[in-house]
């Protein structure tokens, strides 16, 4: 019953997200239904968290109920708008013989998904899943919203009040629908984020590849050892963050390649919402903003008129401004302290410069850690070297950079860690930084090998007709 209620509680969020998607990106025939569903989830979650936070500033005791009322109203409106059915419902589903073959190819992924669900159900939530994110959700549920007093209460510093609120807001939403705090039922939300990550990844690849290669890459992502066996079952927000970052990066990549306005809007909103999930996304946000600015102000400066450049800059920065300004003004206003790092300064950097050696050592350890990533990062490095002549285009260079630059930037921040010893902080956090970039790395790898599909098909279907030449 609790499982059903949790799933039902997410339906209004999906509907509101779908409405936002139609406003932001309209109907685009090239978008797959997998993208539509997962983007609806992402945007709906962002909407609920944002509205809950804003209403809490007026009256926190009414905030959750008011958020539910507004969301339900909008969801009903959307339901009437799309009463003719989602795009999927309008399609005729014919089960063809070939689909048995497809089902067989998808079997490992399906098996893995069920395995993750079973393990998640049998495991306790991890430390942060309970103490940081779970505590916030419990508090918001008990108090009816976000009381300002919580963020400055010295008794509650253990739960990191400075951490963002998107995932705890959705947890509190679910607890409100359930009518109780339920640490078991809430695991469904985290399983859904894991499945949403895979679905979005599959949907993005499906635009470029056939079913076979899309499902192969999705299975490769799904069975990344750290993701499937540790992160997906933890109740941490790293898998949701990876999901938002994948969306933000993939749509910005598409915009750089094709310059469709809808892609830029989506990239901008998802970049901002990722920061609502976890602070680590700030560096991805900066990276994305830098990519947009370099592209418009340097790369395309001579090809675009000034007005077009300004409009595109406006498109990218407006959502971030609207979505993030209230949160950062709030943190500054209440002087909510940073709970993990000291203030960035040259003095502190100089004082802790000897940490760099340890940081580099730990980075190498991550890139080569078979237990966490298998040979995924080795494949990524090989493909990066192999394809380096093709990384000169803005889109490809950006996509590659997104798999590398933010990890380096975030690792450098450990120079300012207040943990003692600081390498403990790295041990706790570094593998999660790599996790955020893992779907981006697989996306990059997949897109670099578009010729693979043709070669595989040729190999499987017409091996004797294959005629190699040396000129290509």
């Amino acid at each position, binding site marked *: 019953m609790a499982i059903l209620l949790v799933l039902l509680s997410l339906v209004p969020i999906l509907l509101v997200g779908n409405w936002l998607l139609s406003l932001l990106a309209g109907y685009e025939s090239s978008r797959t239904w997998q993208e539509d569903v997962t983007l609806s989830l992402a945007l709906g979650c962002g909407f609920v968290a944002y509205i809950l936070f804003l209403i809490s500033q007026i009256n926190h005791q009414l905030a959750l109920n008011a958020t539910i009322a507004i969301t339900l109203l909008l969801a009903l409106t959307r339901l009437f708008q799309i009463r003719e059915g989602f795009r999927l419902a309008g399609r005729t589903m014919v089960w063809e013989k070939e689909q048995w073959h497809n089902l067989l190819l998808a079997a490992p992924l399906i098996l893995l998904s069920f395995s993750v669900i079973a393990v998640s159900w049998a495991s306790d939530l991890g430390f942060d899943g309970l103490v940081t994110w779970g505590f916030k959700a419990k508090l918001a549920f008990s108090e009816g919203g976000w009381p300002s007093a919580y963020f400055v209460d010295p008794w509650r510093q253990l739960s990191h009040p400075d951490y963002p609120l998107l995932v705890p807001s959705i947890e509190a939403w679910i607890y409100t629908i359930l009518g109780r705090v339920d640490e078991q039922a809430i695991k469904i939300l985290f399983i859904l984020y894991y499945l949403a990550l895979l679905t979005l990844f599959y949907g993005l690849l499906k635009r470029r590849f056939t079913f076979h290669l899309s499902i192969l890459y999705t299975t490769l992502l799904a069975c990344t050892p750290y993701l499937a066996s540790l992160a997906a079952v933890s109740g941490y927000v790293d898998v949701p963050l990876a999901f938002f970052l994948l969306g933000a990066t993939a749509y910005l990549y598409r915009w750089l390649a094709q310059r469709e306005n809808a892609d830029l809007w989506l990239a901008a909103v998802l970049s901002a919402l990722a920061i609502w999930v976890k602070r680590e996304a700030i560096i991805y946000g900066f990276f994305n903003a830098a990519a947009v600015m370099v592209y418009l102000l340097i790369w395309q400066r001579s090809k675009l008129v000034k007005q077009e450049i300004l409009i595109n800059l406006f498109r990218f920065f407006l959502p971030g401004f609207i979505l993030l300004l209230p949160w950062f003004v709030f943190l500054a206003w209440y002087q909510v302290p940073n709970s993990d790092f000291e203030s960035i300064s040259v003095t502190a950097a100089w004082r802790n410069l000897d940490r760099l050696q340890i940081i580099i050592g730990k980075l190498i350890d991550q890139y080569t850690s078979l237990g966490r990533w*298998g040979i995924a990062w080795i494949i990524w490095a090989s493909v990066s070297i192999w394809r380096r002549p093709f990384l000169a285009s803005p889109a490809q260079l950006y996509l590659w950079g997104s798999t590398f630059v933010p990890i380096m930037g975030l690792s450098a921040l450990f120079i300012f860690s207040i943990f003692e010893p600081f390498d403990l902080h790295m041990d706790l956090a570094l593998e999660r930084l790599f996790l955020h970039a893992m779907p981006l790395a697989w996306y990059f790898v997949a897109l670099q090998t578009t010729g693979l599909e043709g070669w595989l098909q040729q190999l499987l279907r017409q091996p004797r007709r294959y005629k190699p030449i040396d000129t290509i």
Partner: protein
Amino acid sequence: MPLVISELKKKRYMLYTLLLWVQLVFGMGMTLWRHGLVLFSDWEVYPPYVEPQFDEFIALAKQTCASTSVIIYVSPGSSEHTARFARLHYFLYPFSVVWWSPSPVLTPLDRWQQMDLTKIEEQKIQAMGSACFLVDDLTTPVLNQSGIQFDLTRRLFVIEP
């Protein structure tokens, strides 16, 4: 039109496909092995580091202490005890939980106070109102010497090391 692929590219694709298969088999094997450990061998992905008495204490505190009480956790300062303190903090909400430890903890926590347990002042405890204590992994003699005069109005729950 048949696709024409160079010999060099063909070799690269072969190597790349091999790498993908290695990753697929290894990733799937590693993941399912770990999942098997959880499902069939009681391996815990995120061990809570708590003994059954811990949850008993949480239930006891909720039953007997006023919601305005301060609950005091007295233990060494290891990462294991940090996890236990954090668990108390979560499950005892809306109680306020403070951690007294004779040794430094790995990360500075606001509700942690390094204490010389032999010099705890009775007045300090009284100033905190009706307190509920959980003494964890500290030997009883240390506590006996500490000077804490527990009276019957307070709850003391000791987990022996």
